[in-house]
């Protein structure tokens, strides 16, 4: 496909869409689908057909963000409706010509929508994820054409470096540096892998991006492949995300059909194919060497680094591994320039970050904000604060590798460095708000139970250490621990951190250490007074699933 042909598809699609006087968009991402948004969409389609209104189109689109109020429907880009049911189809169509249906209106002039800045999610909620034409009409694949037609691979790497983009998978490694290492590496063949094994409990950004805008990720991978000189790509996606898998399969097929994947793309020397590989429920596979082992069909166990995958990765060849959100950030950086991206955010953390807001906030869902937004803005403005009568206690970021931050950090601007200084990590972007009904010792035990179950068993500090740390935490929550146990817990935390093979073991103590640091009083009450201030511990369900 040439740039002209791409423009032609875009124009045809725009012309097709403008022939409709009205457009009703229905969210068909997993959040709303689990609230039966697909039957709402069918009901709207039936109603349109019954009325013979061929000037009205009903369009399935990606995530609109406010998952808590789904199913969400947007009429003619100006009225958002929440909690829409099948029976509301007729009134929504009536509302197109007259007044909006008051009882269903979801106000969009609130901080939840106003405070966001959408770059990664710019197409989510606007574009039909199952139609490549719609993506192209929204400017899709123009960044790829720009790269293939006007830029050298080195220029692409320089542009990404200039943007200051850092890996969105958790560690925050500079993306440009990673790309340049793989570009310089020599090998018979190079690979690009998209890490879509979103394992952190409480994180669903990647799922949403894949379900809402799969072509964006493919375009990012293509640009990366051109920059580093790779010819084959893999998307490693969790088997627990069936809808994301389905949409990726459709998107790959469409891109192949249009000649955007395959040999000599757009007449250039870039040849690139993408294959899907399904994860099988192992958290450790988010670690890059474990992920490579899994793509190769083996048990997902990490190996010591170096050699880093950039030098010796998949099948022993240089391999670039980036997270979904990182790839999704690439196309806008190329389109608008690295300098544009670098204007957004803080000194060391550029751009925007997508967060999955969950837990005890009113507005649970997906939000994208500039780096440097404070936790208070996230929780109390965008998140709408806590439910009636509940008090803020902590916010958990970074999943099982992160920490719990108390009230004193609410005014801290969120970026990689600040979170690390406070004892947590950015992680992939899960943000879980906890209120006074959560016991922080129990939360620490919950995460340790997770790490214990997910430890691959290869190195002893992690395999045995997580077990013993969990045992001590279990004793504390069962009110049978002594102060000696707490000292031992700290000692073990230190050991795991310094001697484990991979990030899973090294960061497993983080939830314990951060709660010990900020909620020491709660530990003391459990140990000395045999009391749980939140009233959680000691009422039975102490053994989690698995």
């Amino acid at each position, binding site marked *: 496909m040439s740039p002209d042909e791409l423009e032609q598809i875009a124009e045809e699609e725009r012309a097709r869409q403008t022939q409709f006087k009205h457009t009703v968009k229905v969210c068909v991402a997993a959040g709303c689908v689990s609230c039966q948004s697909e039957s709402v969409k069918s009901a709207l389609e039936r109603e349109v057909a019954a009325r013979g209104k061929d000037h009205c189109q009903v369009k399935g689109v990606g995530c609109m963000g406010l*998952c808590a109020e789904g199913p969400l429907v947007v009429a003619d880009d100006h009225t958002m409706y929440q909690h829409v049911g099948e029976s509301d189809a007729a009134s929504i169509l009536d509302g197109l010509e007259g007044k909006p249906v008051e009882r269903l209106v979801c106000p969009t002039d609130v901080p939840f929508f106003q405070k966001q800045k959408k770059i990664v999610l710019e197409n989510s909620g606007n574009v039909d994820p199952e139609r490549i034409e719609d993506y192209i009409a929204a400017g899709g694949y123009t960044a790829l054409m720009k790269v293939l037609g006007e830029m050298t691979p080195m220029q692409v790497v320089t542009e990404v470096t200039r943007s200051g983009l850092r890996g969105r998978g958790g560690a925050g490694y500079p993306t440009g540096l990673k790309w340049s290492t793989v570009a310089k590496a020599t090998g018979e063949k190079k690979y690009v892998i998209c890490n879509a094994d979103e394992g952190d409990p409480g994180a669903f950004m990647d799922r949403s991006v894949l379900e809402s805008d799969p072509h964006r990720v493919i375009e990012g991978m293509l640009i990366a492949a051109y920059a580093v000189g790779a010819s084959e790509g893999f998307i490693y996606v969790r*088997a*627990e995300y*069936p809808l994301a898998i389905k949409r990726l399969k459709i998107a790959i097929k469409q891109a192949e059909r249009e000649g955007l994947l395959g040999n000599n793309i757009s007449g250039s020397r870039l040849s690139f194919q993408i294959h899907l590989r399904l994860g*099988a429920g192992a958290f450790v596979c988010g670690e890059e060497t474990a992920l490579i082992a899994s793509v190769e069909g083996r048990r997902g166990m990490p190996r010591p680094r170096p050699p880093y995958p950039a030098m010796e990765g998949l099948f022993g060849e240089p391999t670039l591994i980036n997270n979904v959100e990182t790839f999704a950030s690439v196309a806008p950086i190329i389109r608008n320039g690295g300098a544009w991206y670098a204007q957004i955010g803080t000194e060391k953390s550029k751009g925007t970050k997508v967060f999955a*807001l*969950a837990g005890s906030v009113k507005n649970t869902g997906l939000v994208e904000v500039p780096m440097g937004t404070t936790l208070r803005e996230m929780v109390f403005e965008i998140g709408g604060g806590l439910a009636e009568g509940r008090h803020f206690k902590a916010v958990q970021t970074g999943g099982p590798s992160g920490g719990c931050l108390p009230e004193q950090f609410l005014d801290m601007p969120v970026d990689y460095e600040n979170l690390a200084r406070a004892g947590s990590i950015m992680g992939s972007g*899960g943000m879980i708000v906890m209120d006074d009904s959560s016991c922080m010792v129990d939360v620490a035990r919950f995460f340790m139970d997770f790490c214990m179950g997910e430890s691959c068993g290869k190195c002893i500090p992690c395999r045995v250490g997580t077990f013993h740390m969990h045992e001590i935490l279990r004793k504390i929550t069962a009110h049978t621990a002594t102060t000696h146990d707490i000292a031992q817990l700290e000692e073990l935390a230190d050991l795991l951190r310094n001697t484990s093979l991979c990030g899973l073991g090294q960061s497993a103590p983080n939830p314990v250490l951060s709660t010990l640091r900020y909620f020491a009083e709660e530990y003391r009450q459990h140990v000395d007074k045999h009391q749980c201030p939140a009233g959680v511990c000691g009422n039975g*369900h102490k053994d989690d699933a698995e």
Partner: protein
Amino acid sequence: MATTAYLTRPVPPSADKRWRMVEATMRRMGNQSTGLIETLHTVQETFGYLDLDALRYVAATLRVPLSRAYGVATFYHFFSLKPAGEHTCVVCTGTACYIKGAGQLLDALKKELGVTPGQTTSDGKVSVLGARCLGSCGLAPAVVYDREVAGKVTPQALKEHVARWKAHVS
């Protein structure tokens, strides 16, 4: 013997036509060992679980030791070596669901069905599973009834749902 075993193509464990799906996956993966996980996914999707015969057949075709096939099948939580019940109920125990009461949901299932995650009721009707995170955190606590995700589930709603399964004679 050892050499001829490689020369003859392993035959599927039974005449069941569904093995063709498994064969197709292995062919797509070039009958290479790198296709092991993909193939096990197909077996599980087609037959519902992985039994020893299936593992033997897949291992022989992809030329990996049975120990490696078994190792992979047991390493990943997604694979099951036991047949599932007629219905499955997956309770998400991710962080958001946990703090929103996933524990109470598991308690309710234990009371109602007498099973804990990983178990199937003795009549083979319902399997209960725990999931690390379904990515439906905005709707916590979440449960998957067969393949359908339900959000903001209460213990009462959960009990009623499984009771309908139990009562329904198939």
